[in-house]
C-alpha cells in the first residue's frame, strides 16, 4: 500500500468482460442486502476460508511524513480471519446483545464498482465505495463512508467468494459509539 496516499492509483487496468463485471456487481449488491437484513450466517458463506477482513485505524499525518498512514501492525477496527468474524456474528445472535435490540435499521449502499484482472484467472481486484447508515432507537443516525478493495475469487464450483477485504474508513475519529455492522 502506497504510504502517501491510501487511494489506489491503478487506473489503466484493462477492462474485464462485461458478463463478469455484471456478475461481480450483482454479487456485491446481494451481499449488501444480506447485511441490511442482518443475514449474517449467509453473509459468512460469501467469505473464502482464508478471508482477511481488514479495517485499519486511519491516521491524519502530514503529506511529507514517510510513515505509512495505515499499517498491519497498527491498531485496527477489524483485522479478522473467518474465526474472528464468526465470533462477532455469534455475539450479535445472543438474545442478550442489548445493543442489537430493538434491531438497528441498516442501510448499505455500494457504488463505483470497478473490476480489475489479477495475475490469476479466477481472482479479481474489485474497488467499491460503501455508504452506510445505521438508524437506531428513536432518532439515532450514524453515518459511515468507506472505500473498499476486495479480492474476489471464483472457486472451482463456480461460486464467487470474498478472499480479501480492505476497508478504508474515511473518519480518523470514528463518529459513532460502535460499529455493530460489517462494511
Amino acid at each position, binding site marked *: 500500500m502506497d504510504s502517501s496516499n491510501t487511494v489506489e492509483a491503478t487506473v489503466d487496468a484493462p477492462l474485464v468482460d462485461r458478463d463478469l463485471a455484471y456478475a461481480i456487481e450483482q454479487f456485491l449488491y446481494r451481499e449488501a442486502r444480506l447485511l441490511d437484513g442482518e443475514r449474517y450466517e449467509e453473509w459468512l458463506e460469501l467469505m473464502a476460508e482464508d478471508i482477511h477482513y481488514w479495517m485499519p485505524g486511519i*491516521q491524519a499525518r502530514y503529506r511529507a511524513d514517510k510513515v505509512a498512514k495505515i499499517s498491519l501492525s497498527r491498531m485496527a477496527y477489524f483485522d479478522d480471519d473467518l474465526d474472528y468474524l464468526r465470533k462477532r456474528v455469534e*455475539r450479535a445472535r445472543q438474545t442478550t446483545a442489548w445493543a442489537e435490540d430493538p434491531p438497528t435499521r441498516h442501510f448499505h449502499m455500494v457504488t463505483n464498482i470497478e473490476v480489475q484482472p489479477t495475475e490469476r484467472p479466477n481472482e479479481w481486484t474489485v474497488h467499491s465505495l460503501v455508504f452506510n447508515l445505521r438508524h437506531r432507537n428513536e432518532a439515532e443516525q450514524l453515518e459511515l463512508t468507506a472505500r473498499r478493495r476486495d479480492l474476489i475469487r471464483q472457486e472451482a464450483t463456480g461460486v464467487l467468494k470474498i478472499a480479501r477485504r480492505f476497508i478504508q474508513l474515511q473518519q480518523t475519529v470514528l463518529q459513532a*459509539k460502535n460499529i455493530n455492522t460489517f462494511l
Partner: protein
Amino acid sequence: MSFSHPQSRQTEDADALRGLVDPKQGWLDRSIFWDPAIYAVELERIFARSWIFVAHDTQVPNVGDFLTTYVGEDAVIVSRARDNKVHVFINSCSHRGNRVCFAEAGTARRFTCNFHGWSYGLDGALSGVTAEHLYKNNPTFDRKKLGLHKARVESYGGMHFANFDPDAPSLADYLGDFRWYLDIILDNDEGGIEFIDGNIKSRLKCNWKFPAENFIGDAYHATWTHSSALLALFGKVPEMHADRSYQVNANGHGWEFGTDFVGNAATLCEPEIVDYLRESEAMFQERLGKTRSRMVGSLSSATVFPNLSFLAGHNTFRTWNPKGPTETELHTWVFLNRNAPDALKEKYRRGVMLTFSPAGVFEMDDGENFEHCTASNAGVVTRRRKLHTGLGLGSEIDHPELKGHVHQNQINEANHRAFYQRWVDLMTAPIWADVPAR
C-alpha cells in the same frame, strides 16, 4: 443552576456543588451529567488542574517525535525536544490563535503556523517570526513571552502526564498510594511496558464521567451488559467471588479486581497470552509480591482520576476526553511488556481489537449504555430524582497488605463514591491546598 467564573466564584456555588453529590451515602444529582454550567466548572477545576495522561514514552521515542491530543478541551502538542524531555504545550498560536499542528502524530523539527508563519521549537518556544524586522522596537513584542503555553510534565513508569496548574501537587503526590497499584502493570517486568502503534479514536454521545466511573468500579455491569460477548466467546459468564475480590482507591483513583490472575487476559481469546502470564508468574511474584501478582491479568478495571482508564490483562489504556457535557472522545491504546516475545504483540493487538475497540464484542454494548444514561437527563422531571450509587455501603475493611481504602467484593460501588468524593473536593476547592488527600 448557574456558576460564575472561578475567579469571582461565591461560596453559594461551592455549597450548591456540594449538594449535588453525596459520596457517603451514594446519591448523585443527574445534573452533573447534563448541565453546561457544571461542565464549565469541570473544565476549569478538574481538567485544567489535574494530572492528565498525554502519552507513553514509547509513543514519542526520538527527538522531534510528536503527537497531538487534549487536556480537557484544550488541544495540546506532546513533543520530545532536543533536551530529550517530553514537553506539552497548547496547540494554538500566540499570534491570532490558529491551530499550529494538524497531524495526529509525526516527526518535526519545528511547528509552523499556517496563518502568518510564526514557528515554534520542539519545546514550544517561539523560534521564528515572519519579517521580524516589522516588530523592531515594538514595546510589547517579547519573543520569550510569546512561546506556546506550556504545561508541567511529569511521568510515572513511562506514562507522561500534563498539568496546567502551577500550584498542583507533584504527580507522585497526586497518584499517592495508587502508584503501588500502577506498578502491577507498569513494573511487573524490568523492561516496563510499551504502547503498540496506533490509537483508535471514537466519539460517544455521553458525559465523560459515565465511562470513567464505569472503569473505576463497575464490575456489577460486566456479566449483565457483556453477557452476549461472554456467551459468544465462552458459552458462559465468569463467576466473581466476593470473598476473593476487592475495590481499592486512593485520591479518587481506583481499581476493582478479582485475584484470579488471568480472568481478563483469558477473554482475549488468545491462549498464548494466558500461557505467557502463567510462565511469568514467578517473576511477577518476585517483583510485586504474591498479592499484587494475582492482579496482573485478573478480572478487573481501573481509572486514574479523572479520565485515564485501563484494563489489566486486556492490556488496554484509554482516555475519556470531554467534548461538551454530553459528548466524549475515546482514545484507545494497546500496551504490553516490552520484554514479552514479539509474537505476543500481535496477539494483544488482535485480541483487544476483537473485544475492546469500538467494533469489539464487549465495547459494543457499553457505548449504548453510556449514551442513554446521559440522554435521559434532558427531561427536567427526570433530573429531579437522584441516582443511587450505594452498592456496598459499609464494605470497607482493613487489609494487611493492600494500600489505600480497601473494600471487600469487587461488585461494589465504593470506587464510584470515591471518584465523586474527589470530584466534589476539586470542584469546590478554590486552590489545590484546599483539596484533601483521600
